[in-house]
């Protein structure tokens, strides 16, 4: 995992969950962080804005959205893959 991407995502999630970034760990799930469906769409919006990417996510079928939200670490890895896919030169 790229530390800069992970730090930024943890900071976004922490802000949405109203927690200190230090309290958010890669193995935690969004449920454990107390994020509901509206919190989740806000997190995704913030990620899209921060990394200039477009996240394929449909709230009707979160598990089939080709964007793994099963844990904080999974989100970081998914974003890294998207950054790599969209801007390979920067990776």
């Amino acid at each position: 995992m790229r530390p800069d991407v992970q730090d930024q995502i943890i900071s976004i999630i922490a802000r949405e969950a109203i927690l200190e970034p230090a309290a958010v760990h890669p193995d935690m799930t969004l449920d454990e962080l107390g994020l509901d469906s509206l919190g989740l769409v806000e997190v995704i919006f913030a990620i899209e804005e921060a990394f200039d990417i477009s996240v394929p996510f449909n709230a009707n079928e979160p598990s089939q959205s080709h964007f793994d939200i099963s844990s904080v670490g999974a989100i970081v890895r998914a974003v890294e893959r998207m950054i790599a896919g969209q801007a390979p030169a920067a990776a």
Partner: protein
Amino acid sequence: MRRVVITGAGTVNALAQDVPGTLKAFAEGRCGIGPLDFPDVERLSVRIGAQVRDWTPEAHFERAQLTLLDPFAQLALVAAREAMAQAGLGKSPGAPERWGAVMGTAGGGNSTVNDAFRTVFAEGKNRVHPLTVPRLMNNAAASHLSMEWGLMGPSFSVATACASSNHAIGLAFQMIRSGMADGMLAGGSESMLNFGGLKAWEGLRVMSPDGCRPFCATRNGMVQGEGAGVFVLESYESASARGAEILAEVRGFAMTSDAGDIVAPSAEGAARAISGALADAGLAADEIGYINAHGTGTSANDRTECAAIHAALGASAERVMVSSTKAMHGHCIGGTGAVELLACLMALRDGIIAPTINHVQADPDCALDIVPNTARQVPVRAALSNAFAFGGLNAVLALSKV
């Protein structure tokens, strides 16, 4: 308390620009959803919707009047003209002070807002059309209806998101029943299929990219529509006295609030509204032959609505026919309940049950007779129309044959 009946119906929606065409489309199970067509649509991630095609406002309005009319008011006026003509009312019967118009809408003049914002933000201009405010205001449709027919009694708009039309029709029903008014034009209208309107919806990530499949295991979201439905409601006595054809009787109405989540629906709140409408109507659950469901095609609504129908109707839920016509005309938001009430009128008058089209695979969480894909011919004596809005506001109407 007075009995209240419907003597006129009118509509404009993606399926047709009148009631006969819409009912024919319902009976055929036709889908009005297709590629959206308006400026900047290529910048949207979801590009399908149920748009009113071949709309020619000049065919309906003089230029001087048109300049005052956002599309949502145009659709409302044309629908109301059809309803008033069917009711046989060139102008309001009896005392005009005893007639009014109550119209639901969520976005009001949303396309006027979109145009004005484009002008000042995108085009950098420093002035907008001088009539921007009277076009965009939420009460414009109700006001234009009152002006067109000189209705001088209570008129206002109701904004309860996706339940706006049912709240509007329910309030009109209560006003006539209680003696506050003799007759009302009631319904709803919505037209927010424009870049700004849909960009806002995109953010919620609840729209389907490929179609509306209510109650289907493969459903993946709602599809936006636009349209209006308007009904003439009047007291049974006045309708009978002038020999008007009665389309149906409005028997009961209930509204509840979930007081829970701003977007997630609650089966308990929805069930209370269904039970409340039955109680208000004096109808037993086993007397209901058809329910026009809210049935948006989102994962959460359809599952929750089915649980609510089971909770409210008990064993009768096993045999009641339930369909969502949104798969055909899209989700017309503040106008949707009015367009959908037409399916109840068709069930009661013609014994034709509009189907839930696009059905592919049963969902165990939606174990009801959803009348999949093909219309059915079954006599129905009483029907319900459900509407459950964002904000947790629920409104259910009960209708029957007279």
